[in-house]
């Protein structure tokens, strides 16, 4: 492809509550065997983008660990590759990434030294499949300066945590409002942009000169009447996991056959780091209904309408309902867990109960001592 990729994975988000205590949103485990950033990285790899930069900043340990080898997404190449850029102190700059535009400015060398004419910018928290070549074709056809991938959300979804766009009949964005108090449309920005590389460098340099740091506020909103900014409507599945509720819902979506088939069976595949875990094991006493179970798990109890990530141990007589159990969790015997998200590496004592409600999903953090044979 004639583009480089940039994944913005540095942000913090209070809406994730305790789940963001120890990791960046882009490193959130999703749908049993993946992490959020796998979707964007796989899309880039499947779109034949060869050179990808990931900007990390907030709580990047687990994300960096996940990205420690680039071979899983086929980025282990001599031509291009996967680059992880964290903020560094230089002669000119001793700041963190103060915003998305600032992050781009601090890594301007990467943009300048690339040869590809276009740049695809995407966040690390979107769950979707997309061939960016289609967006690029649209971008060229519309002679756009910037193309923003947009999605029409259903009426019942609260869209005020997104950027709202209004377009004219041609698809040109005529209004762009970030996280509005009152939503005036149901079309939101997915935070995925296609832009000509030289155009981006120019805009970012101008931002920096004016001490502006945010790509949405200081580029998209500010330039909406000056530049041709177009909306590319995404018709297929898209969700963003940056709040506890949407994280829970997105995971539960994978219990639907159409979502599962779309991501797991249809071309192209989503790739992830391989963990070398044995197959899941069901011992006598296991009762599993309508659930996703990942490798390395051992189940002795009841699991219903739930998603078990990798290496989860469920003790005897446990009942787990409508819950998400993240990686490497040990659940002692006779425990009841309903409507919860259990944080990874938790150790849940025997005979305990954790109950949330569908409206208020409970996040369970339990760092007890674990005795393993």
């Amino acid at each position, binding site marked *: 492809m004639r583009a480089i990729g940039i994944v913005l994975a540095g942000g913090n988000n209070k809406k994730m509550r305790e789940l963001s205590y120890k990791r960046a949103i882009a490193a959130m485990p999703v749908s049993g065997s993946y992490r959020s950033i796998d979707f964007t990285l796989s899309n880039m790899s499947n779109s034949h983008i060869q050179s990808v930069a990931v900007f990390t900043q907030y709580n990047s340990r687990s994300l960096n660990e996940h990205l420690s080898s680039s071979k899983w997404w086929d980025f282990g190449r001599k031509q291009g590759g996967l680059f992880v850029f964290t903020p560094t102190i230089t002669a000119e700059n001793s700041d963190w990434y103060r915003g998305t535009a600032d992050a781009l400015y601090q890594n301007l060398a990467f943009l300048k030294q690339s040869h590809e004419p276009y740049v695809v910018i995407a966040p690390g928290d979107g769950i979707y499949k997309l061939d960016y070549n289609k967006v690029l074709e649209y971008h060229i056809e519309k002679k756009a300066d910037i193309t923003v991938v947009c999605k029409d959300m259903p009426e019942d979804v609260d869209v005020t945590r997104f950027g709202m766009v209004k377009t004219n009949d041609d698809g040109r964005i005529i209004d762009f409002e970030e996280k509005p108090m009152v939503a005036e449309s149901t079309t939101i920005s997915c935070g995925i942009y296609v832009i000509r590389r030289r155009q981006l460098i120019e805009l970012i340099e101008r931002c920096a000169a004016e001490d502006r740091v945010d790509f949405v506020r200081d580029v998209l909103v500010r330039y909406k009447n000056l530049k041709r900014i177009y909306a590319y409507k995404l018709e297929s599945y898209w969700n963003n996991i940056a709040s506890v509720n949407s994280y829970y819902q997105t995971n539960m979506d994978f219990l639907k056959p159409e979502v599962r088939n779309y991501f797991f069976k249809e071309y192209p595949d989503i790739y992830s780091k391989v963990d*070398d875990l044995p*197959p899941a094991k069901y011992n*006598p006493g*296991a009762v*599993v209904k*309508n*659930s996703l*179970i990942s*490798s390395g798990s051992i189940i002795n109890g009841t699991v219903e309408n739930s998603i078990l990530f990798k290496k989860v141990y469920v003790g005897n007589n446990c009942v787990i309902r409508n819950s998400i159990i993240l990686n490497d969790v040990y659940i002692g015997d006779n425990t009841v867990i309903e409507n919860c998200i259990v944080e990874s590496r938790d150790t849940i004592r025997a005979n305990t109960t954790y109950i949330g409600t569908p409206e208020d999903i409970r996040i369970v953090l339990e760092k007890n001592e674990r005795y393993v044979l």
Partner: protein
Amino acid sequence: MVKKEMIAMLLAGGQGSRLGVLTQKVAKPAVSFGGKYRIIDFPLSNCINSGIDTVGVLTQYQPLRLNSHIGIGIPWDLDRNVGGVTILPPYEKSKGSDWYTGTANAIFQNLEYMESYNPDYVLILSGDHIYKMDYEVMLEYHKANNADITIAAMPVPIEDASRFGVVITNETNRILEFEEKPQQPRSNLASMGIYIFSWPVLREALVHLSEEPGCDFGKHVIPYCHGRGDRVFAYEYNGYWKDVGTLGSYWEANMELIDIIPEFNLYEEYWKIYTKSDIIPPQFIARDAVIGRSIIGEGTEVYGEIHNSVIGAGVVIGAGAVVRDSIIMRGCQIGAGAQITKAIIAEDSRIGEGTVVGVGDYAESRYSPKVYQFDLVTIGEHSVIPDHVRIGKNVAISGVTTAEDYPDGALGSGEYIIKAGGVR
């Protein structure tokens, strides 16, 4: 200069004819095992876990699956700048081009490969055993004994010893005598087919015996070295080790994995077994599914019932289907309402709706009674079984079958259908 203290040579060229239709299209080391693995994953993982980063894999029989599985060795961390994994097929020479005619002959034909690493020791492995073993400990033992050859051997019940090659040792474990499948075994130490050779000893023996037809380690090389007075020692191994050379032992070894605490435990953090995982998604267990005592691979969808079974990755078990005491390998589709009992179904096969497999009275296989026994139904890879047929015990099926192949909708016990290029 390139220098490796010990390199491994992994013999993976055999067909494994006693696995019947399972090895019709793949070499035995490439046969699936334990839901997501292939047999060769065990020796390869042992190598890297033992710190051996140079492995030559000798292939000959049906190598495609092995080649694509091993690739450049990424899953085992054997993608190295120097060393790593190398596939060594037989090749044409300016004179005397030859297939690999025996285990030692195969190694002899790759003298140059071994020489290029300047090894002190060469480890000879076969690709058809399930076990975890630290070859580094064995090497230390070899060095401590100042041995020329060390042979891994394990104690077996004395009544079984007559099925193996046994070694008779003195009190220092130096081997005094060999007996191949003795009627009256004088020892219960069975050779496991794992050898460490000091390189000059191996090199000299291979060159000396190069004209020997079908040159074999057990039959020729070891007796030759022993005969000239080399120091040959037995390294006693007491862990889990399983030869999966017959359908019965292959089935048994798989079934042992589903014990509550399996003797061969894949869930231990220490000594991981690595494999190429190209199916990543989690498995989906539907609302009406019932699962008891089984292991299930990634991406499998279960709508029916599974009991006491080993299910591979990417399998679909249809609604109302019941699978018992069976091994179902990756990519198989079991139709709705099918009943599968004590069957081994190889990769990417399709079983029709309502088909019943493994029922009826015992009958000896008419195809090959030595291979197909233990009441097992064995179905080769990419086979198709039509809807609503009944299949008996000790049956072998390979290829795309249609309703016409089943007179009265049934195939009795001991029968077989082998289509296109079948083997015994």
